[in-house]
Protein backbone atom coordinates (compact mmCIF):
# COMPACT_ATOMS: atom_id res chain seq x y z
CA UNK A 1 0.00 0.00 0.00
CA UNK A 2 1.12 3.56 -0.68
CA UNK A 3 0.28 6.59 1.40
CA UNK A 4 0.80 10.32 1.32
CA UNK A 5 1.57 11.56 4.83
CA UNK A 6 1.21 15.10 6.10
CA UNK A 7 2.98 15.25 9.44
CA UNK A 8 3.39 18.07 11.95
CA UNK A 9 7.12 18.81 12.29
CA UNK A 10 8.40 21.06 15.05
CA UNK A 11 12.07 21.20 16.11
CA UNK A 12 11.44 22.02 19.77
CA UNK A 13 8.91 23.52 22.16
CA UNK A 14 9.69 27.06 21.05
CA UNK A 15 9.91 26.51 17.26
CA UNK A 16 6.96 27.43 15.08
CA UNK A 17 6.37 24.12 13.32
CA UNK A 18 4.28 23.19 10.30
CA UNK A 19 2.88 20.33 8.23
CA UNK A 20 5.39 18.49 6.00
CA UNK A 21 4.44 15.99 3.25
CA UNK A 22 6.07 12.57 2.85
CA UNK A 23 5.38 9.58 0.62
CA UNK A 24 5.66 5.99 1.81
CA UNK A 25 5.40 3.04 -0.55
CA UNK A 26 5.15 -0.72 -0.34
CA UNK A 27 3.54 -0.80 3.11
CA UNK A 28 1.93 -4.12 4.11
CA UNK A 29 -1.76 -3.82 5.00
CA UNK A 30 -0.96 -5.86 8.12
CA UNK A 31 1.73 -3.54 9.39
CA UNK A 32 0.80 -1.36 12.33
CA UNK A 33 0.61 2.42 12.10
CA UNK A 34 3.89 2.70 13.99
CA UNK A 35 5.62 0.14 11.75
CA UNK A 36 4.58 2.38 8.85
CA UNK A 37 6.10 5.39 10.65
CA UNK A 38 9.23 3.31 11.45
CA UNK A 39 9.55 2.63 7.70
CA UNK A 40 9.28 6.36 7.01
CA UNK A 41 11.87 7.16 9.68
CA UNK A 42 14.27 4.55 8.24
CA UNK A 43 13.90 6.27 4.85
CA UNK A 44 14.55 9.66 6.43
CA UNK A 45 17.64 8.41 8.30
CA UNK A 46 19.11 6.79 5.17
CA UNK A 47 18.48 10.01 3.27
CA UNK A 48 20.32 11.95 5.99
CA UNK A 49 17.13 13.59 7.28
CA UNK A 50 15.68 14.00 10.72
CA UNK A 51 13.31 11.17 11.79
CA UNK A 52 9.83 12.05 13.03
CA UNK A 53 9.61 11.98 16.83
CA UNK A 54 6.54 10.24 18.28
CA UNK A 55 5.65 8.63 21.60
CA UNK A 56 5.36 4.84 21.84
CA UNK A 57 6.23 2.18 24.36
CA UNK A 58 4.41 -1.12 24.86
CA UNK A 59 2.85 -1.25 21.38
CA UNK A 60 0.15 -3.54 22.72
CA UNK A 61 -2.46 -0.98 23.78
CA UNK A 62 -1.99 -1.03 27.54
CA UNK A 63 0.55 1.60 28.53
CA UNK A 64 -1.05 4.85 27.36
CA UNK A 65 2.18 6.26 25.93
CA UNK A 66 1.15 6.55 22.30
CA UNK A 67 -0.93 9.41 20.97
CA UNK A 68 -1.30 10.97 17.46
CA UNK A 69 -4.27 12.84 16.08
CA UNK A 70 -4.90 11.03 12.78
CA UNK A 71 -7.23 12.56 10.18
CA UNK A 72 -9.17 14.52 12.80
CA UNK A 73 -9.46 11.71 15.34
CA UNK A 74 -7.22 10.77 18.28
CA UNK A 75 -5.79 7.24 17.82
CA UNK A 76 -7.20 7.18 14.27
CA UNK A 77 -10.40 5.90 12.71
CA UNK A 78 -10.95 2.63 14.60
CA UNK A 79 -13.07 2.73 17.76
CA UNK A 80 -11.68 1.44 21.04
CA UNK A 81 -8.01 1.08 20.05
CA UNK A 82 -4.80 2.99 20.66
CA UNK A 83 -2.63 4.14 17.74
CA UNK A 84 -0.22 1.24 18.33
CA UNK A 85 -3.08 -1.23 17.74
CA UNK A 86 -4.14 0.51 14.54
CA UNK A 87 -3.26 -1.24 11.28
CA UNK A 88 -2.77 0.12 7.79
CA UNK A 89 -5.64 -2.04 6.46
CA UNK A 90 -7.92 0.50 8.15
CA UNK A 91 -6.88 3.04 5.50
CA UNK A 92 -7.51 3.19 1.75
CA UNK A 93 -4.56 2.61 -0.61
CA UNK A 94 -3.23 5.97 -1.75
CA UNK A 95 -4.99 7.85 1.05
CA UNK A 96 -3.60 11.11 2.41
CA UNK A 97 -3.12 10.77 6.17
CA UNK A 98 -2.80 13.87 8.35
CA UNK A 99 -0.87 13.26 11.57
CA UNK A 100 -0.87 15.93 14.27
CA UNK A 101 0.10 16.06 17.94
CA UNK A 102 -2.55 16.38 20.70
CA UNK A 103 -3.59 20.02 20.91
CA UNK A 104 -4.30 21.51 24.31
CA UNK A 105 -2.85 24.45 26.19
CA UNK A 106 -2.09 22.07 29.07
CA UNK A 107 -0.25 19.66 26.70
CA UNK A 108 2.51 21.73 25.04
CA UNK A 109 4.33 20.21 22.05
CA UNK A 110 7.91 19.20 22.90
CA UNK A 111 8.99 18.04 19.47
CA UNK A 112 7.14 16.92 16.30
CA UNK A 113 4.29 14.68 17.51
CA UNK A 114 5.35 14.46 21.16
CA UNK A 115 3.47 16.52 23.74
CA UNK A 116 4.15 16.98 27.43
CA UNK A 117 1.34 15.18 29.26
CA UNK A 118 2.76 15.67 32.75
CA UNK A 119 -0.34 17.79 33.51
CA UNK A 120 -2.09 14.43 34.04
CA UNK A 121 0.59 13.42 36.57
CA UNK A 122 0.01 16.65 38.45
CA UNK A 123 -3.72 15.93 38.59
CA UNK A 124 -3.00 12.46 40.00
CA UNK A 125 -0.57 14.01 42.51
CA UNK A 126 -3.42 16.24 43.71
CA UNK A 127 -5.40 13.26 45.00
CA UNK A 128 -5.58 10.28 42.66
CA UNK A 129 -4.45 7.82 45.32
CA UNK A 130 -5.38 6.25 48.65
CA UNK A 131 -3.10 7.64 51.34
CA UNK A 132 -2.95 4.76 53.80
CA UNK A 133 -0.43 1.99 54.13
CA UNK A 134 -1.92 -1.14 52.68
CA UNK A 135 -0.81 -3.30 55.63
CA UNK A 136 -1.38 -7.04 55.64
CA UNK A 137 -3.83 -8.87 53.39
CA UNK A 138 -7.34 -8.64 54.90
CA UNK A 139 -9.65 -11.65 55.09
CA UNK A 140 -11.47 -12.07 51.76
CA UNK A 141 -14.90 -11.38 53.25
CA UNK A 142 -13.96 -8.61 55.65
CA UNK A 143 -14.52 -5.74 53.15
CA UNK A 144 -17.67 -6.54 51.16
CA UNK A 145 -18.00 -4.71 47.80
CA UNK A 146 -21.21 -4.93 45.72
CA UNK A 147 -20.58 -6.66 42.39
CA UNK A 148 -21.94 -3.71 40.40
CA UNK A 149 -19.65 -1.25 42.18
CA UNK A 150 -16.58 -3.39 41.69
CA UNK A 151 -17.40 -3.80 37.97
CA UNK A 152 -17.96 -0.05 37.49
CA UNK A 153 -14.77 0.70 39.40
CA UNK A 154 -12.77 -1.70 37.24
CA UNK A 155 -14.30 -0.22 34.07
CA UNK A 156 -13.14 3.25 35.18
CA UNK A 157 -9.73 1.89 36.19
CA UNK A 158 -9.05 0.76 32.61
CA UNK A 159 -8.12 4.40 31.81
CA UNK A 160 -4.51 4.41 30.58
CA UNK A 161 -4.14 8.20 30.80
CA UNK A 162 -3.28 8.66 27.12
CA UNK A 163 -5.08 12.01 26.82
CA UNK A 164 -7.28 11.16 23.81
CA UNK A 165 -10.25 12.61 25.73
CA UNK A 166 -8.51 15.99 25.95
CA UNK A 167 -7.36 15.80 22.32
CA UNK A 168 -10.84 15.10 20.96
CA UNK A 169 -12.74 17.48 23.23
CA UNK A 170 -13.75 20.75 21.57
CA UNK A 171 -12.88 22.42 24.90
CA UNK A 172 -9.68 20.45 25.64
CA UNK A 173 -11.33 19.29 28.86
CA UNK A 174 -9.83 16.56 31.02
CA UNK A 175 -13.10 15.64 32.69
CA UNK A 176 -13.34 12.08 31.37
CA UNK A 177 -9.85 11.39 32.71
CA UNK A 178 -10.59 12.83 36.14
CA UNK A 179 -14.09 11.33 36.12
CA UNK A 180 -12.51 7.90 35.57
CA UNK A 181 -9.92 8.38 38.32
CA UNK A 182 -12.46 9.76 40.80
CA UNK A 183 -14.93 6.96 40.04
CA UNK A 184 -12.45 4.14 40.22
CA UNK A 185 -11.45 5.13 43.74
CA UNK A 186 -14.78 6.47 45.06
CA UNK A 187 -16.65 3.26 44.23
CA UNK A 188 -14.48 1.11 46.49
CA UNK A 189 -14.50 1.24 50.31
CA UNK A 190 -10.75 1.91 50.51
CA UNK A 191 -11.08 5.00 48.30
CA UNK A 192 -14.40 6.17 49.75
CA UNK A 193 -12.74 7.52 52.90
CA UNK A 194 -10.96 10.35 51.08
CA UNK A 195 -13.49 10.74 48.24
CA UNK A 196 -14.75 14.23 49.16
CA UNK A 197 -11.28 15.67 49.57
CA UNK A 198 -9.94 13.88 46.48
CA UNK A 199 -12.52 15.15 44.01
CA UNK A 200 -12.16 18.74 45.18
CA UNK A 201 -8.37 18.80 44.96
CA UNK A 202 -8.23 17.01 41.61
CA UNK A 203 -10.78 19.38 40.04
CA UNK A 204 -8.97 22.40 41.51
CA UNK A 205 -5.69 21.17 40.01
CA UNK A 206 -7.39 20.57 36.65
CA UNK A 207 -8.65 24.18 36.63
CA UNK A 208 -5.21 25.54 37.56
CA UNK A 209 -3.59 23.66 34.69
CA UNK A 210 -5.83 25.37 32.12
CA UNK A 211 -8.00 22.49 30.89
CA UNK A 212 -11.44 23.46 29.59
CA UNK A 213 -14.71 22.23 30.99
CA UNK A 214 -17.15 19.67 29.67
CA UNK A 215 -19.97 20.70 27.35
CA UNK A 216 -21.31 17.14 27.13
CA UNK A 217 -20.65 16.58 23.42
CA UNK A 218 -19.25 13.13 24.36
CA UNK A 219 -16.47 13.15 21.75
CA UNK A 220 -14.23 11.84 24.57
CA UNK A 221 -16.32 8.70 25.07
CA UNK A 222 -16.33 8.07 21.31
CA UNK A 223 -12.54 8.39 21.09
CA UNK A 224 -11.42 6.78 24.36
CA UNK A 225 -9.35 3.69 23.41
CA UNK A 226 -10.74 2.02 26.55
CA UNK A 227 -14.34 3.18 25.82
CA UNK A 228 -14.73 4.78 29.23
CA UNK A 229 -18.29 6.03 29.71
CA UNK A 230 -19.31 9.64 30.35
CA UNK A 231 -21.34 8.28 33.26
CA UNK A 232 -18.03 8.73 35.10
CA UNK A 233 -18.15 12.49 34.40
CA UNK A 234 -21.64 12.63 35.91
CA UNK A 235 -20.35 10.70 38.94
CA UNK A 236 -17.47 13.16 39.33
CA UNK A 237 -19.92 16.11 39.10
CA UNK A 238 -22.14 14.43 41.69
CA UNK A 239 -19.21 13.70 44.01
CA UNK A 240 -17.91 17.25 43.58
CA UNK A 241 -21.22 19.06 44.15
CA UNK A 242 -22.04 16.78 47.08
CA UNK A 243 -18.62 17.45 48.61
CA UNK A 244 -18.98 21.22 48.15
CA UNK A 245 -22.43 21.27 49.73
CA UNK A 246 -22.23 18.65 52.47
CA UNK A 247 -18.65 17.81 53.39
CA UNK A 248 -17.37 19.05 56.72
CA UNK A 249 -14.42 21.39 56.74
CA UNK A 250 -11.37 19.60 58.01
CA UNK A 251 -10.76 20.42 61.63
CA UNK A 252 -7.59 22.32 62.22
CA UNK A 253 -5.72 20.62 65.03
CA UNK A 254 -3.82 23.22 67.03
CA UNK A 255 -0.71 21.98 68.66
CA UNK A 256 -1.06 22.27 72.43
CA UNK A 257 1.63 24.26 74.09
Amino acid at each position, binding site marked *: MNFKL*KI*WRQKNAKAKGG*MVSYDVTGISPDSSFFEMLDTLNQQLIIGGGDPVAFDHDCREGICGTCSL*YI*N*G*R*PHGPVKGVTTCQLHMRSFRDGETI*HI*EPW*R*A*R*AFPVIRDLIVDRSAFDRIIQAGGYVSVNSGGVPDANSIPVPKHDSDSSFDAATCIGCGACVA*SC*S*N*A*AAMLFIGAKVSHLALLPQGRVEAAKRVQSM*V*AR*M*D*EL*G*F*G*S*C*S*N*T*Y*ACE*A*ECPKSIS*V*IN*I*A*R*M*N*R*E*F*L*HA*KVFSEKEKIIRESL
Partner: protein
Amino acid sequence: MLFSSITRKALMALAGLFLVTFLCVHLGINLMLLRDDGGETFTAAASFMGTNPAIRAAEIVLFSGFLVHIFFGLWVSGQNRAARGKSYVVGNRSETSLLSKYMFHTGIIVLIFLVLHFIDFYFIKIGLVAPPPGIETHDFYHRTLVLFSSPVYSAIYIICFIFLGIHLNHAFQSAFQTLGLNHTKYMGAVKFIGSAYSLLMTAGFSLVPIYVYFFK
Protein backbone atom coordinates in the same frame (compact mmCIF):
# COMPACT_ATOMS: atom_id res chain seq x y z
CA MET B 1 -10.32 30.82 41.31
CA LEU B 2 -13.65 32.20 42.47
CA PHE B 3 -15.79 29.40 41.04
CA SER B 4 -14.47 26.02 40.03
CA SER B 5 -15.26 24.79 36.52
CA ILE B 6 -17.90 22.36 37.79
CA THR B 7 -19.56 24.99 39.99
CA ARG B 8 -19.79 27.37 37.03
CA LYS B 9 -21.37 24.66 34.90
CA ALA B 10 -23.78 23.64 37.65
CA LEU B 11 -24.94 27.25 38.14
CA MET B 12 -25.42 27.55 34.39
CA ALA B 13 -27.41 24.31 34.34
CA LEU B 14 -29.65 25.38 37.25
CA ALA B 15 -30.30 28.79 35.69
CA GLY B 16 -31.00 27.07 32.36
CA LEU B 17 -33.51 24.65 33.90
CA PHE B 18 -35.24 27.61 35.55
CA LEU B 19 -35.47 29.37 32.15
CA VAL B 20 -36.98 26.16 30.74
CA THR B 21 -39.92 26.51 33.14
CA PHE B 22 -40.30 30.21 32.31
CA LEU B 23 -40.52 29.39 28.60
CA CYS B 24 -43.57 27.16 29.25
CA VAL B 25 -45.36 30.04 31.02
CA HIS B 26 -44.49 32.45 28.21
CA LEU B 27 -45.74 29.99 25.57
CA GLY B 28 -48.98 29.49 27.50
CA ILE B 29 -49.70 33.22 27.37
CA ASN B 30 -48.65 33.52 23.71
CA LEU B 31 -51.06 30.77 22.72
CA MET B 32 -53.92 32.89 24.11
CA LEU B 33 -53.37 35.06 21.02
CA LEU B 34 -54.90 32.22 19.02
CA ARG B 35 -58.29 32.72 20.70
CA ASP B 36 -60.56 34.60 18.38
CA ASP B 37 -61.84 37.18 20.89
CA GLY B 38 -60.10 40.33 19.74
CA GLY B 39 -57.22 39.73 22.14
CA GLU B 40 -59.36 39.92 25.29
CA THR B 41 -57.92 36.79 26.98
CA PHE B 42 -54.38 37.64 25.94
CA THR B 43 -54.62 41.24 27.16
CA ALA B 44 -56.09 40.10 30.47
CA ALA B 45 -53.23 37.61 30.94
CA ALA B 46 -50.63 40.20 29.91
CA SER B 47 -51.99 42.78 32.32
CA PHE B 48 -52.10 40.16 35.11
CA MET B 49 -48.41 39.39 34.42
CA GLY B 50 -47.68 43.12 34.34
CA THR B 51 -49.42 44.06 37.59
CA ASN B 52 -49.53 41.07 39.96
CA PRO B 53 -46.98 41.75 42.75
CA ALA B 54 -45.91 38.08 42.95
CA ILE B 55 -45.18 38.05 39.22
CA ARG B 56 -43.36 41.38 39.48
CA ALA B 57 -41.13 39.86 42.19
CA ALA B 58 -40.64 36.70 40.12
CA GLU B 59 -39.49 38.88 37.21
CA ILE B 60 -36.43 39.90 39.20
CA VAL B 61 -35.61 36.21 39.73
CA LEU B 62 -36.18 35.61 36.03
CA PHE B 63 -33.81 38.39 34.98
CA SER B 64 -31.20 37.06 37.40
CA GLY B 65 -31.67 33.62 35.81
CA PHE B 66 -30.97 35.10 32.39
CA LEU B 67 -27.96 37.04 33.64
CA VAL B 68 -26.43 34.02 35.43
CA HIS B 69 -26.95 31.76 32.40
CA ILE B 70 -25.54 34.31 29.93
CA PHE B 71 -22.66 35.43 32.15
CA PHE B 72 -21.46 31.91 32.97
CA GLY B 73 -22.12 30.79 29.39
CA LEU B 74 -19.79 33.46 28.02
CA TRP B 75 -17.21 32.85 30.76
CA VAL B 76 -17.12 29.06 30.32
CA SER B 77 -17.04 29.36 26.51
CA GLY B 78 -14.16 31.84 26.68
CA GLN B 79 -12.16 29.54 28.95
CA ASN B 80 -12.93 26.54 26.76
CA ARG B 81 -11.63 28.34 23.69
CA ALA B 82 -8.45 29.33 25.51
CA ALA B 83 -7.93 25.73 26.69
CA ARG B 84 -7.36 24.45 23.15
CA GLY B 85 -4.49 26.85 22.40
CA LYS B 86 -3.31 26.13 18.87
CA SER B 87 -6.03 24.56 16.74
CA TYR B 88 -5.78 21.42 14.61
CA VAL B 89 -5.07 21.54 10.88
CA VAL B 90 -7.77 18.91 10.31
CA GLY B 91 -10.93 19.72 12.26
CA ASN B 92 -12.33 17.19 14.71
CA ARG B 93 -14.25 14.33 13.15
CA SER B 94 -15.29 12.49 16.30
CA GLU B 95 -18.86 11.31 16.69
CA THR B 96 -20.63 13.69 19.03
CA SER B 97 -24.08 14.22 20.40
CA LEU B 98 -26.15 15.94 17.66
CA LEU B 99 -25.31 19.65 17.18
CA SER B 100 -23.91 19.74 20.72
CA LYS B 101 -20.76 21.54 19.58
CA TYR B 102 -22.75 24.63 18.64
CA MET B 103 -24.21 25.58 22.05
CA PHE B 104 -22.25 28.82 22.08
CA HIS B 105 -23.36 29.78 18.55
CA THR B 106 -27.03 28.91 19.06
CA GLY B 107 -26.86 30.66 22.44
CA ILE B 108 -25.57 33.85 20.79
CA ILE B 109 -28.42 33.76 18.22
CA VAL B 110 -30.95 33.38 21.05
CA LEU B 111 -29.24 36.25 22.90
CA ILE B 112 -29.56 38.51 19.82
CA PHE B 113 -33.21 37.52 19.59
CA LEU B 114 -33.66 38.36 23.26
CA VAL B 115 -32.27 41.87 22.68
CA LEU B 116 -34.63 42.42 19.72
CA HIS B 117 -37.52 41.06 21.74
CA PHE B 118 -36.73 43.52 24.56
CA ILE B 119 -36.64 46.42 22.10
CA ASP B 120 -39.94 45.32 20.53
CA PHE B 121 -41.89 44.74 23.73
CA TYR B 122 -40.23 45.21 27.10
CA PHE B 123 -38.68 48.64 26.49
CA ILE B 124 -42.07 49.93 25.29
CA LYS B 125 -43.74 48.47 28.35
CA ILE B 126 -41.38 50.15 30.80
CA GLY B 127 -41.57 53.40 28.79
CA LEU B 128 -37.96 53.40 27.57
CA VAL B 129 -39.05 53.39 23.92
CA ALA B 130 -42.15 55.16 22.60
CA PRO B 131 -44.73 52.79 21.08
CA PRO B 132 -45.29 53.02 17.31
CA PRO B 133 -48.09 55.45 16.28
CA GLY B 134 -51.63 54.18 16.85
CA ILE B 135 -50.66 51.63 19.50
CA GLU B 136 -50.93 52.20 23.23
CA THR B 137 -48.06 51.41 25.62
CA HIS B 138 -49.69 48.28 27.05
CA ASP B 139 -51.49 47.09 23.92
CA PHE B 140 -49.34 44.01 23.23
CA TYR B 141 -52.11 42.38 21.21
CA HIS B 142 -52.08 44.95 18.40
CA ARG B 143 -48.32 45.35 18.67
CA THR B 144 -47.95 41.60 17.98
CA LEU B 145 -50.38 41.72 15.04
CA VAL B 146 -48.45 44.62 13.46
CA LEU B 147 -45.06 42.89 13.91
CA PHE B 148 -46.23 39.53 12.58
CA SER B 149 -47.97 41.12 9.58
CA SER B 150 -44.45 41.39 8.15
CA PRO B 151 -43.36 38.03 6.66
CA VAL B 152 -39.69 38.98 7.07
CA TYR B 153 -40.13 39.61 10.80
CA SER B 154 -42.10 36.39 11.18
CA ALA B 155 -39.45 34.41 9.30
CA ILE B 156 -36.65 35.80 11.50
CA TYR B 157 -38.77 35.03 14.57
CA ILE B 158 -39.35 31.41 13.52
CA ILE B 159 -35.69 30.88 12.55
CA CYS B 160 -34.63 32.13 15.99
CA PHE B 161 -36.95 29.59 17.61
CA ILE B 162 -35.52 26.80 15.47
CA PHE B 163 -32.09 27.71 16.85
CA LEU B 164 -33.53 27.86 20.36
CA GLY B 165 -34.95 24.36 19.78
CA ILE B 166 -31.50 23.08 18.74
CA HIS B 167 -30.00 24.73 21.84
CA LEU B 168 -32.64 23.23 24.14
CA ASN B 169 -32.41 19.75 22.64
CA HIS B 170 -28.83 19.39 23.88
CA ALA B 171 -29.23 21.70 26.87
CA PHE B 172 -31.94 19.77 28.69
CA GLN B 173 -30.14 16.43 28.97
CA SER B 174 -26.82 18.24 29.33
CA ALA B 175 -28.07 20.02 32.47
CA PHE B 176 -28.89 16.66 34.07
CA GLN B 177 -25.44 15.29 33.23
CA THR B 178 -23.75 18.41 34.63
CA LEU B 179 -25.70 18.13 37.87
CA GLY B 180 -24.54 14.52 38.15
CA LEU B 181 -27.95 13.06 37.37
CA ASN B 182 -27.01 10.45 34.80
CA HIS B 183 -28.48 7.02 35.38
CA THR B 184 -29.12 4.19 32.92
CA LYS B 185 -32.62 3.96 34.40
CA TYR B 186 -33.84 7.44 33.51
CA MET B 187 -31.33 9.05 31.09
CA GLY B 188 -33.29 7.76 28.09
CA ALA B 189 -36.44 9.39 29.44
CA VAL B 190 -34.59 12.66 30.14
CA LYS B 191 -33.27 12.76 26.56
CA PHE B 192 -36.73 12.02 25.17
CA ILE B 193 -38.41 14.68 27.31
CA GLY B 194 -35.72 17.22 26.32
CA SER B 195 -36.21 16.56 22.60
CA ALA B 196 -40.02 16.56 22.88
CA TYR B 197 -39.90 19.76 24.93
CA SER B 198 -37.64 21.60 22.46
CA LEU B 199 -39.81 20.48 19.55
CA LEU B 200 -42.96 21.66 21.35
CA MET B 201 -41.40 25.04 22.18
CA THR B 202 -40.25 25.67 18.60
CA ALA B 203 -43.60 24.55 17.18
CA GLY B 204 -45.65 26.40 19.81
CA PHE B 205 -43.91 29.75 19.47
CA SER B 206 -43.88 29.47 15.64
CA LEU B 207 -47.62 28.81 15.61
CA VAL B 208 -48.48 32.42 16.54
CA PRO B 209 -46.79 34.19 13.56
CA ILE B 210 -48.07 31.46 11.20
CA TYR B 211 -51.62 31.92 12.53
CA VAL B 212 -51.40 35.73 12.29
CA TYR B 213 -50.02 35.55 8.75
CA PHE B 214 -52.69 33.22 7.41
CA PHE B 215 -55.79 34.05 9.44
CA LYS B 216 -55.59 37.72 10.45
